């Protein structure tokens, strides 16, 4: 029962992340244009950003519906691993000044090793959550939502900590 609650909490958490990412791409596509163009080429414009946003929103919707939860989690894990691979490619080419856009359009987080690891861990969590059924009962759902809420706040704090660390490193390098 406990594992089912945890699995469900992680599912809601990943769904919130993807919903936020997808909505941000639809609301401020220009903020992601540079990042997407640096990967898919300069021809990839606002449409490409919106398409990625739509896939992320679709994945979030799949995760929330109990019948398609597993499919949504697998799609989310695949996206997270793809993003990690793209970031790894940029880091390998020395493009570490590229904004990741992970924390929304206002975020100043740049691509880097810590984000690659974060994505890999998130993808692992999403795949782990596929092994558990949806918990039954009102209390279980409330507990799963509480787990998701704590995960969302912890993720936001981690994102800010990474951004602060990167700023510190950029300042120290000057």
């Amino acid at each position, binding site marked *: 029962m406990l594992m089912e609650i945890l699995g469900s909490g992680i599912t809601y958490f990943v769904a919130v992340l993807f919903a936020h990412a997808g909505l941000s791409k639809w*609301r*401020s596509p*220009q*903020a992601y244009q540079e990042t997407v163009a640096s990967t898919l080429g300069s021809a990839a414009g606002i449409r490409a950003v919106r398409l990625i946003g739509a896939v992320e929103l679709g994945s979030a919707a799949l995760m929330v519906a109990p019948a398609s939860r597993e499919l949504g989690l697998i799609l989310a894990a695949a996206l997270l691993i793809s993003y990690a691979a793209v970031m790894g490619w940029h880091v390998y080419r020395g493009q570490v000044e590229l904004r990741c856009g992970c924390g929304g*359009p*206002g975020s100043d987080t740049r691509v880097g090793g810590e984000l690659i690891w974060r994505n890999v861990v998130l993808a692992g969590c999403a795949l782990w959550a596929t092994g558990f059924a949806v918990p039954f009962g009102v209390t279980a759902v409330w507990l799963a939502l*509480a787990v998701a*809420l*704590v995960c969302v*706040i*912890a993720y*936001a*704090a981690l994102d*800010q*900590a990474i*951004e*602060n660390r990167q*700023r*510190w490193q950029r*300042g120290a390098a*000057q």
Partner: protein
Amino acid sequence: MSLLVVSNILLWLTVVVLAIMNYVLLRQVGVLYERVAPAGALMVNRTLEVGQAAPALEALTLTGERVSIAGPLGGRSQLLFFLSPDCPVCGELTPALMAVARAEAEWVDVVLVSDGDEQDHAGYVSRKSIELPYVVSELVGKSYGVSKLPYAVLIDENQRVSSMGIVNSREHLDSLFEAKERNVASIQEYMNKRDEERFVEVKS
């Protein structure tokens, strides 16, 4: 409702509140980073404007070498640093200037400029172990509209004024290079533009 359930609810609430507090604290650190971001060299000049041709002059250094100011630079930039032996901040900045001259030697030549009695300057150069070209010329200061010290003017490879301002710290000095790199008149202008862009992004 049993005591255990109540305590569990309270514990959950505590965890959420603590997590929020953690986030808020980290966000505040981020805001501090934004607020203390490069305080660029203050641009105060009634004679020159960024982008205009820098006044070309010839001058002699204290060691008798001829220095061309804003003359043909062979694809290099030139940093004119205006100082005075009586100015304590200038003295504090000379080690940083020499470090900058070494670090940026690939693309920029640093020239120190001052005016007054050559004897005083020779002693100053010796005391501070200054190894950079040192020009004593009132004309250079007047031509470049320097009214406050220490002041620096960065001339780009096309003999145009790239950035300039009062320099009170190493950070101010770096901001002149940063302004040239980012193609803005000053770091303040860059920061203002960036803030405006962010505001538009959030609004849209």
